[in-house]
């Protein structure tokens, strides 16, 4: 029992990270109908930016307070990653809007290859590890021989994810930008006719998606303490799986899907085979798309002639 609860805690933590990335996929798919293949690599780049910011703060500026350092790292990573994703949208996707349907996907695949290799060339192929940022844990129960622990870094991840999701929900549900976004999702031409700046709204969508990916990247770096240039692909596909599982286009779906994928992955590793944990996640993707293509919270896609 203790073992199971521990796996649940680990799974929800991993799932929060996937959920944050999944929101980026789901938002971009919702508004321009493309799978932003480079999103996983944007997440990886953000982890590198967080790493560099962390090193500047601790070894150059000598900031002792970890909480303050983490907060600044988060802000810096969000800013720079947003800029990167904004530029990607301007350069690689906007000229292809209205082109044939596969063009943006191919361009996104190219961008994904470019980003991961750019990081490899500029930062080197070896993985980068840092000493643990946040140490310590709560021991929840010691009964039944297996201690159940909740580490502080897991708590930080839960807390940051929850706060950001609330802020994000407010942004989409209550602000002018959120309204414009939902209008563009429904009908871009009509939204333009009633005075919504479609280009700006799409740009802002990419910026928000990148900011959330940067949060995920910072949390990932803090949780694992190691990152390398190829770390974007597999988390990217898993987060996409989460978005599909939750129903692509649905924001609560992305979060629920992310947590489900995190749980499936950790429970699979714990009870079956750690070697095949990625196979489990990829199989979930295939099975969902085949049997439940609209996902848990999505609307069915009506085919119009």
């Amino acid at each position, binding site marked *: 029992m203790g073992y199971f609860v521990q796996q649940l805690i680990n799974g929800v933590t991993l799932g929060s990270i996937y959920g944050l990335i999944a929101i980026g996929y789901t938002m971009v798919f919702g508004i321009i109908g493309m799978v932003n293949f480079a999103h996983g690599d944007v997440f990886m780049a953000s982890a590198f930016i967080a790493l560099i910011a962390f090193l500047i703060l601790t070894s150059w500026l000598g900031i002792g307070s970890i909480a303050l350092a983490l907060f600044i790292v988060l802000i810096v990573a969000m800013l720079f990653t947003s800029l990167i994703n904004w530029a990607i949208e301007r350069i690689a996707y906007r000229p292809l809007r209205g082109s*044939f349907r596969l063009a943006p996907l191919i361009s996104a695949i190219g961008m994904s290859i470019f980003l991961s290799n750019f990081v490899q060339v500029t930062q080197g192929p070896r993985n*980068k590890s840092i000493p643990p940022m946040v140490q310590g844990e709560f021991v929840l129960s010691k009964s039944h021989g297996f201690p159940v622990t909740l580490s502080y870094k897991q708590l930080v991840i839960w807390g940051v994810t929850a706060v950001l999701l609330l802020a994000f929900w407010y942004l989409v549900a209550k602000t002018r930008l959120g309204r414009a976004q939902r209008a563009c999702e429904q009908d871009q031409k009509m939204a333009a006719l009633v005075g919504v700046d479609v280009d700006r709204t799409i740009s802002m969508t990419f910026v928000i998606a990148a900011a959330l990916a940067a949060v995920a990247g910072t949390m990932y770096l803090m949780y694992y303490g190691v990152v390398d240039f190829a770390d974007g692909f597999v988390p990217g596909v898993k987060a996409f799986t989460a978005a599909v599982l939750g129903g692509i286009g649905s924001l609560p779906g992305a979060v629920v899907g992310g947590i489900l994928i995190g749980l499936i992955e950790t429970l699979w590793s714990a009870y079956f085979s750690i070697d095949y944990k990625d196979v489990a996640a990829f199989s979930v993707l295939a099975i969902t798309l085949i049997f439940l293509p609209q996902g848990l919270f999505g609307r069915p896609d009506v085919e119009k002639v």
Partner: protein
Amino acid sequence: MEAAPEARRIDVAGALRDAGVTGLIAFGLFLPLIGFETVTNIRDELILTTRWPLLLALLVVIAGGRFAYSVAVAPWLARRAERPKPATSAWQRHIRQWLVPFAIGFVVVYPIGVIAIVGFGGALRWVDNFGIQILIYVMLGWGLNIVVGLAGLLDLGYVAFYAVGAYSYALLAKNFGLSFWILLPLAGILSSFWGILLGFPVLRLRGDYLAIVTLAFGEIIRLILINWVALTNGYAGIIGIPRPTFFGIPFTADDNGFAAVFGLQFSPVYRVIFLYYVILALALLTCFVTMRLRRLPIGRAWEALREDQIACRSLGINTTNTKLTAFAMGAMFAGFAGSFFAARQAFISPESFTFIESATVLSIVVLGGMGSQIGVAIAAVAMIGGTEILRQLNFLKEIFGQTFDPTQYRMLLFGLAMVLIMIWRPRGLISTRDPSVYLKERKTIGADLVAEGRG
């Protein structure tokens, strides 16, 4: 013409402002990842070093480039756009007419020409690295073209079938001692079987979803190859795969070898040349079969499916069977190419079958212009030949110092090329395609008139 002399005047102040803004954005983009480098020091700690000169140089180049664009290139493009487009001249038509026979003639005499120019010693590299390498990708491109170009099904896991072919050959040849020529068709059959197996559940999906599921299948197959160590030897791969023989005569240095039997001096070049003609024949077979299939009812059904799935179904075409045959045909050619690859390398490991390979083949098909056979071939030559040339650019070391390694930039440039070509010519470099079926006379339709990939 004298309508707008004002507009003609170059706006230097505006160009400077643009260049400044571009430089500022580039500064923000590159500051973290180029301005700083994370290095592991002797005590195994991660430390930061700075690269301000490099960052500065890059920003100057970017801002300067932007300035040059607004001052010189943009006005030039505008002037060019005003000029009427010249009609297709006679020599352009001649090129179109003679390109294919010339290209086939060139690839047939290529190894002989290489030996004549650089001799036996240097020929190995040219025939192997350029000839065989490019032809494998040409073949894969043509195979994938059936799935993507003709049937309009976006397949991101094509490399899975290539892997199935390679591992089929490697395992059956090593464990049962079967020859290359028996296993070649067998590998193709096994691959197409896997094509049907994987194709069956995903038939209901369309477009991007299909792409992602095929990607997942490709990754699953690779992960199984890595983890099923008892069968595949995992990451270490399979070594000592038997090489193909020349009708039973091996290419070895001993008395029964090819060179001894034909009374020649032993040289590894003979085997390479033999392999070159094998892959050339296989590639041409792929092309020929595809061209013939396009004229059969099944090929027409593929193209109809690509254009409009609903219309296709309402005309009584069985879309399930049509899609499955496309998957199976494409997978079969990948299986041929895979078994050839295993025989040529004599070593395979899961490293050769990553997603990057699928993306490479897909980009070849897309850049060449989906459905165009010659376009795919040209794209393969440009992409694979280009990256191979990058491997050979040792003189760059003289300029940038000994630590500079041009091969590092291979995939970087590759990704950039995919993006840029999509922006420049989204329909591919060769963006016209002859219809297989036509009324009264054959017309070349611009690909922009064809709605592709809606299946």
